[in-house]
């Protein structure tokens, strides 16, 4: 090692020490700070996946806006889906702080390189699916995002903090509408139980594979990007949700569900991870439809984006000429 190489190495070591010191002290890593390349890559993967989930998630719910059964429900749903678009926007902006453009991220989604939450590859078949998504899916998202609001990467933590407030509201409104259906006419009761039956297991899969099988988990926990494991998060979701289901007389479709007095948690049956992997890798009921919808929105909007940038270019020229 010559003198230059040696000093570069020491500089690198000093930066890494400073990065580790910050993590250790519970300080946030900010965009201007040095960070290991692997940390940056993993964050881009995780944050963009989160952003894509918000955007793809608009589709299964959005298609019920025109069919909502009352004006009030229509307004609530429209506002909710609009919030999800806002979440997508903060998260894309957050990801851009890591040096990648929104266009690049969107291209990765459209090409299938980037993933989004598995849950949105299932169809919304009846109105009851909408309140059930608010209660279960937003409920699961809150468990995850409450943890991520404490994430070591500053922009990601702040985006999640902001998102969590809205998600709590979505969940509250979802649960309130679920309760109404569960106490409604016989048809409504049947509709809402059927929706629980279809959405329960895919919701549990949202937390990802078991810890023993989760390749990224320990690294993310060491970096304090995450502070809890998949299984811990899933358990806390089950514990709170089972009680909520019982409170409105809904049945969780799991014969193995039983309260474990010893540990004070609900035990639940095995999750079909083959289904999770199959759907994540493209073979789910709505994967093709969701991606096609996103791609065609993007392609059909190309002329609009082109016009906006051409107009901006002309305007700039005109200002230069005028001055």
């Amino acid at each position, binding site marked *: 090692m010559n003198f230059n190489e040696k000093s570069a190495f020491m500089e690198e070591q000093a930066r890494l020490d400073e990065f580790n010191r910050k993590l250790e002290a519970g300080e946030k890593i900010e965009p201007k700070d040095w960070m290991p390349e692997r940390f940056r890559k993993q964050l881009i993967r995780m944050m963009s996946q989160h952003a894509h989930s918000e*955007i793809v998630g608009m589709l299964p719910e959005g298609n019920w806006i025109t069919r*909502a059964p009352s*004006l009030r429900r229509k307004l609530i749903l429209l506002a909710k889906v609009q919030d999800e*678009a*806002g979440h*997508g926007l903060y998260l894309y902006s957050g990801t851009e702080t890591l040096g990648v453009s929104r266009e690049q991220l969107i291209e990765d989604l459209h090409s299938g390189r980037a993933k989004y939450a598995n849950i949105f590859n299932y169809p919304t078949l009846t109105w009851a699916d909408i309140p059930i998504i608010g209660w279960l899916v937003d409920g699961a998202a809150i468990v995850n995002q409450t943890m991520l609001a404490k994430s070591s990467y500053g922009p990601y933590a702040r985006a999640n903090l902001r998102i969590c407030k809205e998600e709590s509201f979505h969940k509250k409104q979802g649960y309130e509408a679920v309760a109404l259906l569960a106490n409604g006419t016989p048809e409504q009761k049947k509709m809402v139980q059927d929706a629980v039956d279809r959405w329960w297991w895919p919701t549990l899969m949202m937390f990802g594979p078991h810890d023993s099988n989760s390749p990224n988990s320990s690294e993310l926990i060491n970096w304090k990007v995450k502070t809890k494991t998949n299984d811990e998060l899933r358990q806390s979701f089950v514990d709170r949700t089972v009680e909520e289901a019982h409170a409105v007389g809904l049945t969780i479709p799991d014969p193995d569900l039983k309260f474990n007095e010893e540990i004070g948690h609900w035990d639940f049956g095995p999750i079909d991870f083959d289904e999770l992997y199959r759907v994540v890798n493209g073979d789910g009921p709505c994967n093709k439809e969701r991606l096609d*919808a996103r791609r065609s929105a993007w392609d059909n909007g190309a002329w609009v*984006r082109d016009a906006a940038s*051409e107009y901006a270019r002309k305007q700039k020229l005109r200002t230069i000429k005028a001055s």
Partner: protein
Amino acid sequence: MTKQEALFTYLLRLADDRLILGHRLSEWCGHGPVLEEDIALANMALDNIGHATSLLTYAAEVEDKGRNEDQLAFFRDVREYTNIKLVELPKGDFGFTIARQFLFSTFAMLHYEALKDCADPQLKGMTAKALKEYRYHHRHSKQWIIRLGDGTKESHERIQKSINDLWMYTNELFFMNEVDEVLISEKIAVNLEKLRSDWQKLVEETLKEATLEIPDYKQYMQQGGRNGIHTEHLGYLLGEMQQLPRMYPEAQW
């Protein structure tokens, strides 16, 4: 025609325009050209449907026959809907939606400005609140008309075609009959004919800035919406919108 009957119809007209337009805007949710526009279009759908809900609630109160806003929205058929045809046309491409937004919100803004001295306090309050929203809708769509008109060759052609295609539906914005006469004499409504030159001026200024041509005012102009004579598109729209409450009329949601 009594003042009560006239006011009920007047409120329905305002509400139906906004509910149907809001429905068309809401169809964009998740399908916009950029995320910012998904948010903007959803926002404008919310403004329209929210305002329509208040108008229908008040209309039901004025009618005093035990109906509520949901019954008015979900249990009237095509022939009882009083919106103008402009708002029920399918959403088209982004340019078509923007062109309609521009033509409609420019009118709605002028209309609500004129209602600032409305003698009905409830209507006055509602329209004053919504005026701020229509100013924003106007500004938003105006900026897009200019960008698209003065953007690329393709965008120029597309937005010009949308303006041309929508033009024959614009005369209906100014429709008036006995309902308006009764309410004008009560100082509740305003003479819409008086808004025409301001509307034309605002529309023409923007089209010029966008390097677009102003279509011929003397062409064939559509009418009928206010009397429940609609395009064929409205039946499909209502079929979709009203399906659930009609399937389960006993249910609360």
